[in-house]
C-alpha cells in the first residue's frame, strides 16, 4: 500500500492519470525513438527528411539517365529511345513507383507519370509508373550522353541494419567492449566497497574529527574533475617513471574513477547506513562482533539496496565516460574503451549521424541491462535512509 493509492479514492478520474502518464512517457520517449529510427535509416535520408517520415515511405526525387543516343531506334519519322529508368542508371535511383518526372532540375516534377510530355525541340517523353519510358524525337538525337531526367519516386518505408553492422563489425569493437567492462566493473565495485567502509566509519564509529571529515567529503562532491586531470596524470607519470612501469594502466583508471565517484558515494551511502536500526548494530556488538565483522556481516547485506542504487549511477558514469578513460588509460587501439572506439568511427569532422545514433544505441544496451537488473532495489534503496519508514 502506498500513499498514492489513496489519491485514487479522491476521485480524480483514473483515466486522466493513465492518459497523462502515457503522454509523459511518449514525450520522454520521442527523442530516444528519434535516434532509434535514425539509426535504422540510410545515411542519405537522415539529413534530407525527418525521421518520423521513415515509417510512411516518402516520395523521393532523384535523377536518372536515359539511354545513350546510340541506342535510339528509328520509328517512322521519329527516333525513339526506350527502356527503364531503373536500368543501369549510374545515378542509382532506387526502385519504386514513379509518380512524376521532369527534365529540368529546377522543376523535377513537372509531368505526371504515364502521360506523354512535350519537352520542346520536338521531343516527347513518357515515363510510366513502373519506370519504363519512351523518349522520342522527330529528328536524330544529337547529345553525347543520355538525357538526364528527374523523377519523383514513391518509396516504401525502408530500414537498414547497415549502420549497426558498420559499427559492430568495425575493427577492435570487441576488444573495446571487453576493455569497457574491464574498466567499468572494478570502477564500480571498488568505490562502492571503499565508500561503504568509509560511510560505516562515518556513521557508526566514534573518533575525533568525524564531523569535519563528513563536511569535507560533502564539499568535495562539487570538484570539477577536468581540473584534476593534469596534476594527476603528472603524478601517474612520475610514479610510472620511478618504478619503471607503465603510467597508464587499469589500476590507474580504476582508482581515478573510484576517487571521482567517492564523495557522492559516501554521501549517499552514509545517508542510508546511518539510518540502519541502532539496536541491530548494538546487538551484534553484544554478540561480540568487531566493527569489521559488523560491517561485513550485518551492514553490508543490509545496505544492499543502497549499494545497488549507487552502483547503477557509478556504472552509468564510468561506462559513458570518455575523457577519463582517454587520459588515464590511453588512446591506443588496444586501450580504447567502447565510447572511444565508437567515437573513432565518426571521422575527424564528425557528422556521421547514422554512426552516432547507432553507437548511442549500442552503448545504451549494457547500462539498460544493469538498470533493469538492479531496478527493483532502486525504488526502495536510493536514499531510503532519508525517508522515514522507507
Amino acid at each position, binding site marked *: 500500500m*502506498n*500513499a*498514492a493509492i*489513496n*489519491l485514487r479514492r479522491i476521485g480524480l478520474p*483514473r483515466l486522466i*492519470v493513465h492518459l497523462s*502518464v502515457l503522454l*509523459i512517457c511518449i514525450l*520522454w520517449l520521442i*527523442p530516444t525513438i*528519434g*535516434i532509434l529510427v535514425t539509426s535504422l535509416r540510410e545515411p542519405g535520408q537522415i539529413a534530407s527528411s*525527418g525521421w*518520423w517520415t521513415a515509417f510512411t515511405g516518402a516520395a523521393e526525387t532523384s535523377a536518372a539517365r536515359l539511354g545513350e543516343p546510340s541506342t535510339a531506334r528509328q520509328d517512322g519519322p521519329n527516333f525513339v529511345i526506350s527502356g527503364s529508368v531503373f536500368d543501369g542508371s549510374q545515378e542509382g535511383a532506387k526502385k519504386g513507383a514513379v509518380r512524376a518526372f521532369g527534365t529540368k532540375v529546377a522543376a523535377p516534377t513537372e509531368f505526371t507519370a504515364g502521360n506523354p510530355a512535350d519537352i520542346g525541340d520536338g521531343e516527347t517523353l513518357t515515363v510510366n509508373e513502373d519506370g519504363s519510358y519512351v523518349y522520342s524525337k522527330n529528328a536524330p538525337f544529337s547529345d553525347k550522353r543520355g538525357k538526364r531526367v528527374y523523377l519523383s519516386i514513391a518509396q516504401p518505408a525502408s530500414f537498414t541494419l547497415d549502420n549497426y553492422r558498420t559499427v559492430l563489425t568495425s575493427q577492435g569493437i570487441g576488444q573495446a567492449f571487453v576493455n569497457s*567492462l574491464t574498466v567499468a566493473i*572494478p570502477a564500480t565495485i*571498488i568505490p562502492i*566497497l*571503499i*565508500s561503504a567502509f*568509509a560511510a560505516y566509519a562515518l556513521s557508526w*564509529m*566514534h*573518533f575525533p574529527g568525524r*564531523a569535519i*571529515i*563528513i563536511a*569535507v567529503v560533502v564539499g*568535495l562532491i*562539487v*570538484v*570539477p574533475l*577536468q*581540473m*584534476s586531470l*593534469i*596534476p594527476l596524470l603528472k603524478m601517474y607519470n612520475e610514479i610510472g617513471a620511478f618504478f619503471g612501469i607503465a603510467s597508464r594502466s*587499469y*589500476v590507474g583508471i580504476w*582508482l581515478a574513477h573510484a*576517487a*571521482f565517484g*567517492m564523495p557522492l558515494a559516501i554521501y549517499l551511502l552514509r*545517508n542510508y547506513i546511518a539510518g540502519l536500526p541502532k539496536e541491530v548494530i548494538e546487538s551484534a556488538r553484544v554478540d561480540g562482533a*568487531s566493527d569489521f565483522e559488523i560491517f561485513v556481516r550485518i551492514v553490508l547485506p543490509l545496505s544492499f539496496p543502497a549499494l545497488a542504487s549507487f552502483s547503477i549511477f557509478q556504472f*552509468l558514469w564510468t561506462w*559513458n565516460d*570518455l575523457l577519463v578513460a582517454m587520459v588515464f588509460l590511453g588512446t591506443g587501439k588496444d586501450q580504447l574503451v567502447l565510447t572511444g572506439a565508437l567515437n573513432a568511427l565518426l571521422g575527424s569532422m564528425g557528422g556521421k549521424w547514422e554512426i552516432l545514433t547507432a553507437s548511442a544505441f549500442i552503448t*545504451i544496451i549494457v547500462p*539498460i541491462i544493469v538498470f533493469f537488473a538492479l*531496478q527493483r532495489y*532502486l*525504488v526502495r*534503496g*536510493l*536514499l531510503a535512509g532519508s*525517508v522515514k*519508514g*522507507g
Partner: protein
Amino acid sequence: MASQIISAFGAVITGVFACAIYYWLSDKLLQIILPVRSGDVRRISANLKTQAAIRPWLFLGPALLLMIVYLVYPVIATFILSFYDRSGGNFVGLANYKWAATDAQFRQSIFNNILWLAVVPAACTFFGLVIAVLTDRIWWGNIAKSLIFMPMAISFVGASVIWKFIYEYRGADGTQIGLLNAIVQFFGGDPQVWIAMPIWNNFFLMVILIWIQTGFAMVILSAALRGIPEETIEAAVIDGANGWQIFWKIMVPQIWGTIAVVWTTITILVLKVFDIVLTMTNGQWNTMVLANLMFDWMFRGGGDSGRSAIIALIIMAAVTPIMIWNIRQASEDRGGH
C-alpha cells in the same frame, strides 16, 4: 578474443579482490598485533580500546587517501594556480581575479548559470514528483518509470545528439528534419532557429538536462512518497481536501527533506555538466556557462591554467552555501549516532 576476455576477467577479479583484501588483511593484522581472543581480560579490554581507536582510520584510510590525492590535492593546486599566469610559471598576484571581475563572457556565464540553477533543479524535481505521484497509481507504473529513467543511461553527448534531431533547423522553404520545427510548421508557424534564440536558447538546452535527470528525481521521490503515512492522507480526505490540495499541502511538505536532497544533487550536477552546452552550441549565441568557460580556458589553444583555475574556484564557491545547508539539514535529521 577469448584470451582478452580471460585477461580482462582476471584483471577485474584481481582489482576487486586486491581492494577487498586490504580490508581483510588490515583487520587480521590488527587482530594479531592486538590480540583479543584470549588472555587476561584487562589486557583484552585495553587492546580492544586501541583497536577501536585505530579501526576507523583503517576503514576510512583508502577513501581518504583517494580523495586527498585525486580531489583535495588538485583543489589546492588549482588554488595556487589561480595566482599564476597562463602557463602556470609566473606569479601574477590577483590579476586573474581582476580579469574575472571584468570579463564580459564571464559575466554572461554567471548569468546563464543562475538561469540554469533556477530552472533545472526545480523542473527536474517538479516533474519527478509529478511523475512519481502519477505512476504510483497505475499498474504499469513501473514500466513507465523505467522508460522515464532510461535517458539516465545515455551519455550526455549521446543525449545532445538526440536533441539535435529535435532542434534542427532548415530554412522555411525546406523540409524540416527537426521535430520541433516540423511541428511548428505543421501548425502553420515559421520554423525557428531554437538554439540561436537569445535567452530562450538557454532553456532549450536545459530541457535536455531535465529530460535526463527527471528520472533520477522521480526514483528518489517515489521512494519518499511511499514513506508518507497513509493515514495523514486519509485524514486530509476526511477534512475535505481534493487531490490537488492533498498533493501540495499534505504530501509535498512531508517529503520536503528528500526534495532538498534531490534538489542539491541536481544543482551540483548542473554546475558540473558541460557536455551538453559543448556539443549543442559550445557557448555560442550567449549560452556559455561556467563549466564550459572553464573548459575553454583550460584546453583551448594550449590553455590558460590561471584563468581556468579561477573559474573552477568560483564553481566550487557557488555550491558551498548549498552544501553547508545540506550538511546542517542532514545532521538535524538524524542527530548523529
